[in-house]
């Protein structure tokens, strides 16, 4: 099995059948993840502002990746709790692209339908749908569709705030669509065909 | 006792070398006094068949001036080699290709195009020379061009080399004196393969300009340096003078009159590639360490290849540029008429 050296990642040299779980995640992550360089120091888990709500600290996830515990990793809520604050990234002594690895794990969990709580994945999917439909994000549509599905009660609670936003002109009830939707669609279509190791 | 035979031949070159020989003034009488001029088309009528009729080695000394550009040149080189005891590559064209050698930067078809089909050529019918042309009287042919310019030594064995474009007349006179002394048993010939009529060092040796440790911040074309200091090394003034790498023997003619050496005497003794010496010499004295700064300074030499190989391209390690090797049906045999 080829080692996931930095050179190989940069060059995108891989074959799916060669990949261990660690290497697979590394390959699917933007940039050079340096995941294999983790020394398990815990500076990520220590830095994380939302670690308290995670079932595993990021460090543990990396150890589990190394151990090939695919199911456990993809079921973990950790990537979904990640708030993209990048504290761990700048503190990591090994320059692991931790936040980007979290994104990769989310994507893998969605594709393999391994996530245990559907709220976050479906929020992402809704968001992506909106963007793919209009080319821009549509907060009102996103919020209503998301809350209707997952937190109808919260929608009621939130409505004061939402109405406030509407009243103050901070939320539009109609989406804005970009002109080049056809172009964007063909770009995304081609991109989806090419997903690195799908 | 008959006098030993002398020959001089002019192949691919401008003819300046022949003039240089004539420029030795009354010394030319010594040639006539000591030699029987067997073959010298510029100076007297002669036929190739007369040369062919000579015994091999019948000519004592042949001065060959010119590069090998076509098959006729090559044929004559082989002929005169066979008939001569001593064959001297005379002048820059014969020794290193000289200006004709710069043709090696372009493919043959481009050379033909430039020669026959550009605005500077008066050729209203667009005539393109053919190797063989049918005329009512039969077929006439002209010699085929070779793929590139060769030096004499690349085609036949050469005994001595005499550089210069052209060789300095006083050097020619000195060589003739030497040969006459050898004939008279008063001197010995130098070892085969020697460069004669020149020094072993480079032009700086003979250059009177003052020189110091060189650090160069910018290169300029000489006309952009105003005024050029008449007493200081040109290179130190930023003028890319080829003198440091060019064989001595010309008495530093150009630097003496305020022009930079352009390198007609070719490389110094033992040097393999003339241009490489200039690359390393000029680069070594640049006063910069950052790549961007170095590049900026190098921009002051707009055509390094042309400057470093003006006389020496055909004898360089590369011999020619990549494009001259291009396969494109440029040979006159294949080029169709206009």
């Amino acid at each position, binding site marked *: 099995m080829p080692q996931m050296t930095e050179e190989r990642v940069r060059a995108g040299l891989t074959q799916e059948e060669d990949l261990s779980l660690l290497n697979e995640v590394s390959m699917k992550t933007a*940039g050079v993840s340096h995941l294999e360089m983790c020394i398990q120091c815990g500076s990520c888990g220590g830095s994380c502002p939302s670690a308290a709500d995670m079932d595993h600290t990021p460090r543990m996830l990396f150890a589990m990746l190394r151990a090939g515990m695919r199911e456990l990793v993809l079921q973990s809520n950790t990537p979904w709790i990640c*708030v993209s604050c990048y504290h761990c990234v700048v503190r990591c002594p090994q320059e692991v692209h931790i936040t980007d690895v979290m994104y990769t794990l989310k994507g893998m969990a969605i594709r393999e339908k391994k996530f245990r709580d559907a709220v976050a994945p479906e929020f992402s999917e809704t*968001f*992506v749908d909106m*963007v793919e439909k209009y080319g821009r994000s549509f907060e009102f549509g996103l919020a209503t569709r*998301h809350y209707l599905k997952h937190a109808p009660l919260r929608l009621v609670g939130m409505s004061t705030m939402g109405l406030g936003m509407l009243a103050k002109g*901070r939320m539009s009830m109609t989406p804005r669509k*970009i002109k080049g939707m056809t172009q964007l669609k063909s770009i995304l279509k081609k991109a989806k065909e090419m997903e690195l190791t799908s | 006792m008959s006098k030993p035979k002398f020959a001089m031949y002019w192949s691919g070159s401008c003819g300046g070398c022949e003039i240089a020989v004539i420029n030795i003034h009354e010394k030319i009488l010594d040639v006539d006094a000591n030699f029987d001029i067997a073959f010298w088309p510029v100076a007297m009528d002669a036929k190739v068949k007369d040369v062919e009729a000579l015994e091999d080695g019948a000519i004592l000394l042949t001065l060959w001036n010119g590069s090998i550009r076509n098959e006729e040149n090559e044929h004559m080189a082989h002929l005169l080699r066979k008939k001569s005891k001593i064959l001297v590559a005379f002048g820059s064209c014969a020794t290193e290709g000289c200006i004709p050698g710069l043709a090696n930067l372009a493919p043959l078809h481009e050379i033909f195009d430039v020669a026959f089909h550009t605005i500077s050529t008066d050729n209203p019918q667009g005539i393109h020379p053919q190797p063989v042309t049918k005329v009512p009287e039969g077929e006439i042919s002209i010699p085929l061009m070779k793929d590139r310019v060769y030096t004499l030594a690349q085609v036949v064995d050469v005994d001595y080399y005499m550089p210069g474009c052209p060789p300095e007349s006083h050097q020619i006179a000195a060589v003739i004196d030497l040969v006459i002394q050898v004939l008279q048993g008063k001197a010995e010939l130098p070892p085969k393969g020697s460069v004669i009529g020149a020094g072993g060092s480079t032009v700086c040796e003979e250059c009177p300009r003052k020189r110091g440790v060189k650090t160069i911040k910018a290169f300029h074309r000489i006309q952009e340096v105003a005024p050029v200091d008449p007493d200081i090394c040109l290179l130190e003034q930023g003028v890319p003078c080829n003198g440091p790498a060019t064989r001595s023997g010309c008495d530093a003619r150009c630097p003496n009159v305020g022009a930079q050496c352009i390198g007609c005497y070719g490389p110094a003794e033992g040097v393999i590639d003339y241009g490489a010496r200039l690359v390393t010499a000029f680069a070594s004295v640049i006063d910069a360490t950052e790549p961007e700064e170095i590049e900026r300074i190098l921009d002051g030499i707009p055509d390094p290849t042309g400057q470093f190989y003006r006389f020496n391209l055909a004898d360089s390690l590369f011999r020619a540029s990549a494009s001259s090797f291009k396969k494109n049906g440029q040979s006159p045999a294949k080029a169709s008429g206009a």
Partner: protein
Amino acid sequence: MSEYIFYPGCSMESSAKAYYDSLMVIAKPLGITLKEIDDWNCCGATEYVGMNLIPAYSLIARNLALAAKMKNGTDTVVAPCSACYLNLAKADYYMSERPSLGEKVNQALEAGGLHYEAGSLDIRHLLDVIINDIGLDVLKEKVVKPLKGLRVAPYLGCMVPRPDYYHRWSDAEHPIELVEVLKAIGAEVIDYPLATSCCGGHMTQIGPETAYELIRRLISSADRYQADIMVTVCPMCQMNLDAYQGETNRYFGTNYQMPIVFFTQLIGLALGFSPKELGFGTEITSTKRALARIGVEIPEPVEEGGPRRKKDEGLPMPPRLIKNAKGKSLHHHVEEAES
């Protein structure tokens, strides 16, 4: 006059309208010309990159490709939104760091007749442009109404100083840029520890309890240090701290009333523009009380809240490390004490 290619981002059209309005108002006096990228699309926020790789980066790169077409004397793209800034910068950086990604993204872009050469644009956040291109001196010069007496908590959030691919910021955790800008417009800037901690990001949508705790930490810290107002450079941060403050209060049984506005809004006030044209009033948590403190009268200097360094007794402290924008440390001086 400095000209920039401008990527506003989706929020600027809606939830962060005040940011957009105030930016447009202050741009002219500060000499900033913004050429909006024609037909830009959403950067994908933190959601799209969490779904897939090539499509996400192609989505971002479409903007870069469109921006590159507009290069005309300037190759700087300015984004006011932290997430947009980071996504654009990240795509540019990763496309070079990992050429195989760059190639694939470009193959996708070609399907739309576009191409982007990684590294050909300079992607910068608005704050960076204001402090480094316009400069504090020019900013100070333009101030007509210094915000004397307004205690401001600078809140930079996460995605501007981190991960900072091109080392533009003085520090990833305690950067000085926003502080300097706020000082330049005369505000009293409080030194509280959480200026670059997280606002909760998208957790307000998908895991509100997590988000509320993060919001509480920020607001309570600013409050403890007696800030009148918090200032942000990011639509998401503003939205979370402002619009979800009520929810947070309900969740923890607290009663914070900490207004949060965009730094461009405060610059606008200092430059003499009216609150209305700067978008004041669109915030959910009212700025009324805080704003009343300025421009009315010169308030007494307020006792600085929070821990204070004692200088005259005890053991000497090393001077603070001041780093320049490239993160290099400037040499420190010898502290003197006459005996």
